[in-house]
């Protein structure tokens, strides 16, 4: 009885206590809280006003968005959404992109849910079957599928292709490089250091230009390979260098005794790395790893400079479309791109936080 009547009261008190503890714990904190509230009050109403209250939601061309005091021009986005997603991928083949996407989600979601069973099989699917299936589906040319040249790929699909490839390949490559940098063999150490410092020293834009303009000059005449492939390699090699440094930080946090214990039990170098050192090292640097992933995800927009049209590139491209030329179109387009990228990056960040929390609860120190 008493418990029933007490519970809600306690909860209300705790909400106030929470605010006192977190927002007004000291004079300085109080000032910060008030400043933040003031900023929110400055920005949010105007933003809402622009994005919702004064915005146009329907319409077939620019005329819908030409009113005085006009807010966002959302029909520009909805009208071109297919292009933003698929780029110039042929319309009658777009089901292949959808299928790839569904196959990817079907593997990714259970992999991310800790309690879902068959993790090993699931990982095998994601790292073995899925990349192959995605490659066959998207580029075609076999299994009765029409070939679709990568120059037609674009939009969010291209963003995902570049980002996912980069993310999936840069982590293992980064781990190998980090181990190399700590190797006892001077030659391997030297090569790793040269690699890492080289790639960290050049801007990604330069790398992409080199991959797409310079590389063909060095290749024998007649040998060409795909521009997208060259970009993928460039992006992967580039982010692997960053990943290597993040992972190295994690490796340094693992006491020597761990590897010694593994050696004393008869485990070889690779066994002790794979089962003992790397799993612990990666746990230490999840925030850094995700940070690199997020950086890579956003850097994919740079493929625009070599003539590949990712989501940002497609939006930019459509801005020049006279049918939608209004004062509000660019702002709307960029806001849309920013929002999509933000959702993806914020999602990654939140998921990594939940993983960290779970690992802490797992009882491992």
């Amino acid at each position, binding site marked *: 009885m008493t418990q029933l009547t007490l519970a809600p009261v306690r909860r209300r008190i705790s909400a106030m206590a929470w605010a006192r503890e977190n927002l007004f714990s000291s004079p300085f904190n109080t000032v910060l809280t008030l400043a933040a509230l003031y900023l929110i009050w400055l920005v949010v109403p105007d933003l809402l006003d622009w994005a919702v209250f004064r915005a146009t939601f329907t319409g077939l061309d620019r005329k819908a968005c030409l009113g005085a005091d006009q807010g966002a021009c959302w029909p520009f986005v909805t009208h071109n959404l297919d292009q933003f997603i698929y780029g110039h991928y042929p319309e009658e083949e777009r089901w292949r992109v959808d299928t790839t996407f569904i196959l990817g989600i079907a593997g990714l979601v259970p992999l991310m849910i800790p309690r879902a069973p068959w993790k090993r099989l699931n990982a095998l699917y994601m790292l073995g079957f899925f990349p192959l299936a995605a490659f066959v589906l998207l580029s075609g040319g076999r299994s009765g599928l029409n070939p679709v040249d990568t120059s037609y790929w674009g939009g969010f699909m291209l963003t995902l292709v570049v980002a996912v490839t980069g993310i999936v390949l840069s982590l293992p490559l980064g781990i190998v490089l980090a181990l190399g940098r700590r190797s006892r063999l001077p030659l391997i150490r030297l090569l790793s250091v040269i690699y890492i410092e080289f790639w960290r020293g050049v801007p990604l834009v330069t790398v992409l230009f080199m991959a797409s303009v310079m590389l063909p000059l060095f290749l024998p005449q007649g040998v060409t390979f795909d521009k997208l492939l060259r970009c993928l390699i460039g992006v992967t090699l580039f982010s692997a260098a960053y990943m290597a440094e993040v992972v190295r930080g994690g490796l340094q946090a693992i*006491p020597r*005794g*761990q590897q*010694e*214990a*593994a*050696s*004393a*039990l*008869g*485990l*070889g170098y690779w*066994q002790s790395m794979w*089962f*003992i050192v790397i*799993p*612990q090292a990666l*746990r230490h640097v999840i925030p850094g790893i995700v940070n690199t992933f997020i950086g890579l995800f956003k850097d994919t927009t740079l493929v625009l400079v070599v003539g590949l049209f990712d989501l940002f590139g497609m939006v930019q491209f459509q801005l020049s479309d006279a049918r939608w030329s209004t004062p509000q179109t660019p702002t709307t387009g960029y806001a849309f791109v920013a929002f999509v990228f933000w959702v993806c990056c914020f999602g990654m960040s939140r998921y990594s936080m939940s993983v960290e929390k779970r690992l802490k609860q*797992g*009882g*491992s*120190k």
Partner: protein
Amino acid sequence: MMDSLEKASSVRDLATARVKIEIAGMSKWYGTFQVLKNINLNVLEGERIVIAGPSGSGKSTLIRCINRLETHDAGRIAIDGVDLTDDLRRVDVVRREVGMVFQQFNLFPHMTVLENLTLAPILVRKMPEAEARDMAMQYLERVRIPEQANKYPGQLSGGQQQRVAIARALCMNPHVMLFDEPTSALDPEMIKEVLDVMIGLAESGMTMLCVTHEMGFARQVADRVVFMDAGEIIEDDVPEEFFAHPKNDRTRAFLQQILSH
């Protein structure tokens, strides 16, 4: 008092036992600093040796050379007559033969106790998983903590962690066990539970080399006490003699200091 205690009994006859570990003229340098100087030490099968000495005298380095966590620069170390060299296959054989327990336990914190125990048997000895698990449970019972099998090391007390570490080494079925100050990182009330396990191990006839400052343990189980100072073995005797009539001044000084505590 302790002298009157009977030496841990076991079925063994050291007079006819064969040499398990042979160390002859062994030296090691860190740069220009000589850590180990002309070490000669034979360990018989089933023999229990306690190594004592002041900090920095090279005790850890000596036993780490035996399972090649460190390499020696001169002289030889042979285990079962097989010389320790850079030949990796021999190193593997030695590491399977020789178990090691560290001062800091060095359990794998991201694995449960059971996983800590089964990892090496499965990976190195290619033992089927179920069999490895059964064996691990047997050893956990032997160190008296079967109920902790599914916990993580971080959830155990220091004494429990060290017992898990001993069980983990035993899971590889070693013929020799090396201990490097296994109780030095423990709170006093946990030292006994670990020493009890080690005494039990000694009684089972295990060949043991143990760096420790637990002189009660030395009296009770050691066949020989080896005293090191500045990289040299300066005394090597049965415990009765070692404690009653130390020959070297430095040994005497050390014993006075450690026994006055």
